[in-house]
């Protein structure tokens, strides 16, 4: 682990891979060092934000180095079923990129159990990974200005669901009517880090 400076109130921890990030994130969430106000897991890094009036960066760095990561992040979180109509505009193109047809892509996408690794981009957007999904789908060469809410998409090693209309460069393979981010609900974010996700094929519209 490399501990990189990130201003006078935060540390950026650089780790070898996503599993290490999530193992450390889980351990620090369960047992946060004094003065830590926010943790932001991402693909290779974990940002630790502190309240400078309550702690110092060096004591937080020490506490982080003493923390033992959890290694059982898969298979323990709440399970959410996401019903999907697989009629996305990029379904066939994404299948081509993976060397299969649309039906096979849907079979693989629904066969895997996904886990929300981290959130970002817009409130409620979860980056989902799967232990068995080994495909790497490039982003669209030119992003769309408007992606409809509920769009189910692929990019890199990740799958995700757009919580609301936004610009986006991921390959759209389907859509769900499930509310991904709903302010009247507590928690508002359905796909939180650690939540397990199974996509269910709803068939043709």
């Amino acid at each position, binding site marked *: 682990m490399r501990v*990189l*400076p*990130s*201003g*006078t*109130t*935060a540390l*950026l921890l*650089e780790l070898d891979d996503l599993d290490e990030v999530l193992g450390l*994130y889980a351990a620090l*969430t369960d047992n946060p060092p004094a003065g830590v*106000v*926010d*943790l*932001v*897991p*991402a*693909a*290779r*890094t*974990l*940002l630790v*934000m502190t309240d*400078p009036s309550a702690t110092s*960066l060096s004591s937080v760095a020490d506490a982080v180095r003493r923390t033992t990561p959890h290694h059982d992040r898969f298979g323990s979180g709440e399970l959410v079923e996401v019903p999907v109509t697989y009629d996305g505009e990029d379904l066939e193109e994404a299948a081509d990129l993976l060397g299969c047809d649309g039906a096979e892509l849907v079979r693989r996408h629904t066969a895997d159990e996904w886990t929300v690794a*981290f*959130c*970002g*981009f*817009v*409130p*409620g*957007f*979860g980056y989902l990974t799967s232990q068995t999904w080994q495909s790497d789908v490039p982003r669209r060469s030119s992003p769309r200005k408007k992606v409809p809410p509920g769009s189910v998409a692929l990019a890199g090693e990740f799958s995700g669901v757009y919580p*609301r209309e936004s610009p986006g460069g991921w390959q759209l393979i389907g859509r769900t009517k499930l509310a991904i981010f709903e*302010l009247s609900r507590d*928690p*508002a*974010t359905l796909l*939180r*880090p650690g939540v397990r996700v199974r996509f269910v094929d709803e068939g043709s519209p």
Partner: protein
Amino acid sequence: MTRSVTVLATGALTTVQDAGRPGQAALGIGRSGACDRTSYRLANRLVGNAPDAAVLEVTFGGLQLRADDDVAIVTTGARCQGSWPHNAPSTLRSGEELRLGTPASGLRTYVAVRGGFVPKPVLGSRSTDVLAGLGPAPVSTGDVLTTGEPEFPAPGIDVAPVADPEEGDVLVLVVPGPRRDWFTDEAWASLVGRAYEVTSDSNRVGLRLDGEPLERVRTDELPSEGMVRGALQVPPSGKPVLFLADHPVTGGYPVIAYVVDHDVDRCAQLRPGQCLLLRETAV
């Protein structure tokens, strides 16, 4: 007793702001909150509010309010032209109006009333996050803003002797960021040696700066990573963006440096055309 003020004019942009939404960044929800936290805290203190009470953040003056009841009120931050005493709590009598002209210096004025403003909180905060689209809608003409119950005694301060926001070039301290080594030494020398001008394409998300482009030694793609307020992120143009209250939680461009936390609030008072002199300090 519930009191209220009625909005007669908003200026360019007036939003409700409080201490923001800490603790939710892992859900992709940023901190947001007042851009100039120092002036925000002062405003609440001067009217005896809780430190996280909601105030109005007025961008480049122009706010006009009419009191529907007697309200204790104060303005801090950018001092606006007009007869209203600044950094000095006073009572706006029922029917009286507060009219903020344009600021003599600085950009953001904070207006606190005793008891705080109490629109419905969203995810634990009354702050408007302009990037994420969370929180109350920006304040508009005709809005009736009610106040909460005071929690603490009024402090009885006549005036807080604080300096007005700076005019002209502003010197702030920076420390190397997590991706300093993605940039050439020439880029670093330029960043901490030359002046960078605040452009008009700036807002609560960040200040877009214009100046010598910063050249990278590494051109591969950076997996998105978390950032905090004060980050100097460098997009492909090479011209840095200084992130403020409503910055995205994660970003995919390298952060070359951070403005030290204490100096970020002064940056939130910069207007387009002012220059930032970023100078390196030890952590």
